[in-house]
């Protein structure tokens, strides 16, 4: 008998690691700019496709090369969005709602740009690029205590750890990181004290876009890459970021584990013990979200939005 519970747990950890890589940059960008950014969806999809296209056209089968390329592409997208759309709009006094709608426009733009480009590339490559199963064997498959740990799992674990270290180092130890945190706390005060806000925000967007794109690669090598990959993940990613109160990076990472475990282990438990169909998975995701929000008022585990808005008004 193979212990399937252990496999469920392993899958849950794998998904949690990817969710964390996807959701932490959303929290980072929200807390610095207060933009509810739908382009996050495109960061994920474009990251996944950076790996797919490198593999298809250049035969790159080293997963870490793909991850680096995805980080750069996602990062550049993040900076372009800010310089071309968010920055000019906020300079003209656009409020958060307008910025959010602008980001929705960008989301649709990027999504169908991707479809159009893939149309052409599919013809050039004479291959179907709309749904791609990408499997790298850069890292070996290991057997721990009779359990097969896949290459994709090891990649996700190492990448998540490296990104966490990088984020910690940049935000806590460097001047740019301190500036990002200062802007997140109080943008006006930060600017008055001489922080070059535009440049610092660009650095933040580069990091946020890059990280989300890396998450896209991790997802593609675990599940499957389609031009809809970001769209299908975004509800979970937002749920996780809200659990982190859209302010706390560490609690967002914790939220990733809460959601991934509820979705996978919780679902498996209900399925085995009570025979609940696995179709209930999305239900579990969002009831977990509601429970966390209600149990840790005012909103989310990070102190919450209403609290911050109230404090600002006072």
């Amino acid at each position, binding site marked *: 008998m193979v212990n399937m519970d252990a496999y469920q747990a392993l899958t849950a950890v794998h998904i949690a690691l990817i969710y964390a890589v996807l959701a932490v940059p959303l929290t980072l960008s929200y807390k610095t700019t207060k933009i509810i950014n739908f382009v996050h969806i495109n960061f994920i999809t474009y990251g996944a496709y950076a790996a797919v296209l490198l593999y298809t056209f250049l035969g790159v089968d080293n997963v870490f090369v793909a991850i680096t390329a995805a980080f750069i592409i996602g990062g550049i997208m993040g900076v372009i969005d800010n310089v071309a759309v968010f920055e000019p709009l906020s300079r003209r006094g656009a409020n958060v709602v307008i910025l959010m709608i602008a980001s929705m426009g960008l989301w649709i733009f990027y999504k169908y740009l991707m479809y159009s480009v893939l149309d052409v590339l599919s013809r050039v490559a004479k291959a179907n690029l709309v*749904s791609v*199963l990408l499997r790298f064997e850069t890292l070996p498959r290991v057997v721990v205590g009779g359990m097969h740990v896949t290459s994709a799992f090891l990649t996700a674990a190492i990448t998540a750890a490296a990104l966490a270290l990088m984020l910690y180092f940049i935000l806590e130890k460097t001047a740019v990181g301190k500036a990002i945190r200062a802007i997140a706390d109080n943008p006006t005060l930060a600017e008055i004290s001489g922080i070059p806000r535009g440049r610092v925000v660009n650095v933040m967007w580069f990091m946020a876009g890059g990280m989300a794109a890396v998450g896209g690669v991790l997802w593609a090598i675990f599940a499957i890459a389609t031009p809809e990959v970001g769209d299908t993940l975004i509800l979970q990613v937002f749920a996780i970021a809200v659990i982190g109160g859209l302010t706390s990076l560490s609690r967002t990472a914790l939220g990733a584990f809460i959601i991934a475990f509820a979705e996978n282990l919780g679902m498996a438990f209900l399925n085995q013990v009570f025979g609940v169909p696995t179709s209930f998975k999305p239900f579990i995701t969002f009831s977990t979200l509601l429970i966390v929000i209600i149990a840790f008022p005012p909103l989310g585990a990070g102190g919450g939005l209403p609290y911050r808005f109230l404090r600002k008004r006072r």
Partner: protein
Amino acid sequence: MTGQNLKIVVAIIITLIIGIGIGYGISLATPTGGGQASSSPTSTGGTTTVTVTKTVTPSTGSRTKVYKIGFTLPLSGELSSVGKMWERVAKMAIDDLNKKVQAYGFNVRFQAVILDDATQDEKALQNVQTFAQQGIKVVIGPAASSQVKAVKSYADSNHIVIISPSSTAPTLAIPNDYIFRTVGSDALQAKVLAALVEHEGVKKVVVFYRNDEYGNAFAEFFKKYFEESGGTAILQSYTTGLSDYSSEVNALAQKVQSSGAEAVVLISFDTDGANILSHAANNPVLSKVRWFSSEGVHGASELLQPSLAKFLISVKFMGTRPQTPHNVLYEQFAKRFKEMTGSDPPVFSENLYDAVMLAGWAILRAGTYDGAAIKDALPKVAAHYYGPSGWTYLDENGDKAFQQYAIWSIKQVNGKYEFSDIGVYQGGAVTLTSQPG
């Protein structure tokens, strides 16, 4: 202010360059076959509209009559990987149809109007309504049975002929409606799959199926036939439209282990099926049992990915699919498609091709572009048409009456993996001509 204007101008120029690049890429990649093709994708809030205009030099001075045929295809969303390929099949079919009707001396031209339904029920309905407003009376698609169900009452009351190339749910076999299907209902395919599993000596299976119109009906029919012949089928459904199915696959493994089933029968579409199989390949329980499937994952290039293909061969993966054996027309069609796109025609491509042909000939036979007349003409035309999908004779429900089925699997030929038909279903029995591997 000048800085602002400069930025706007630069942005416009960049957008133009991107647009020209895409257009040039498409024109390079599109095989030119008599006439100029222009394709312009525009998107509005999640719906991509692709209008294809085909200019054919008129042979005589007289005015050519143009008939529009609507297509609602899953160009985005869950079925987008096949939908994108179907778009090419649709264009190929319209080209062929135009050449053919001109060869017969008709001074008419068919024009495809292709809309994206994002594999969603309500978008499919919206598209059919859009076609109705444009005066289009014949619509090819939608793909999924649940979508066909969604457009049915509108089509019936507005006299729009719907020809779905891929809806197979037995629940939609209804006489005297405006819904036609150029593929057989799954009631028979379920029987073939049950016969295949039985032929392989498997007595107990878990059926892992999509929780939708297609999966539910297929699973129930499979269970009925499989248990009639003395087997045991345990049903386990999964939610559709997820980004990943790993936890569903783990639950499946648990079910297989606790029930002692010898095989899994997978009833899926392509992207979800490929994802499920890729997780099963890494699962110690699921890589030890046999796997069978319906037509859903046939032709999905993901299955040819080496690590997945190796798994499929090791579990002697076999599936059923609607196909007419020894059909030279299909072989020619598949060869042409592969030359054009580099990949095998995805599932139901031939049924789509024939749907377009039937639509064209039915419009000509009706003599007038009127829904009711075309509806009456369609079965008459179909009774005398033989194409890549075989004989298209329609039964009283407007579904393909004589559907034959092939057994398919993955084979390794000269170091490359490919889809291969390894047997047929004839006279109530499965005959295998070769083994997977």
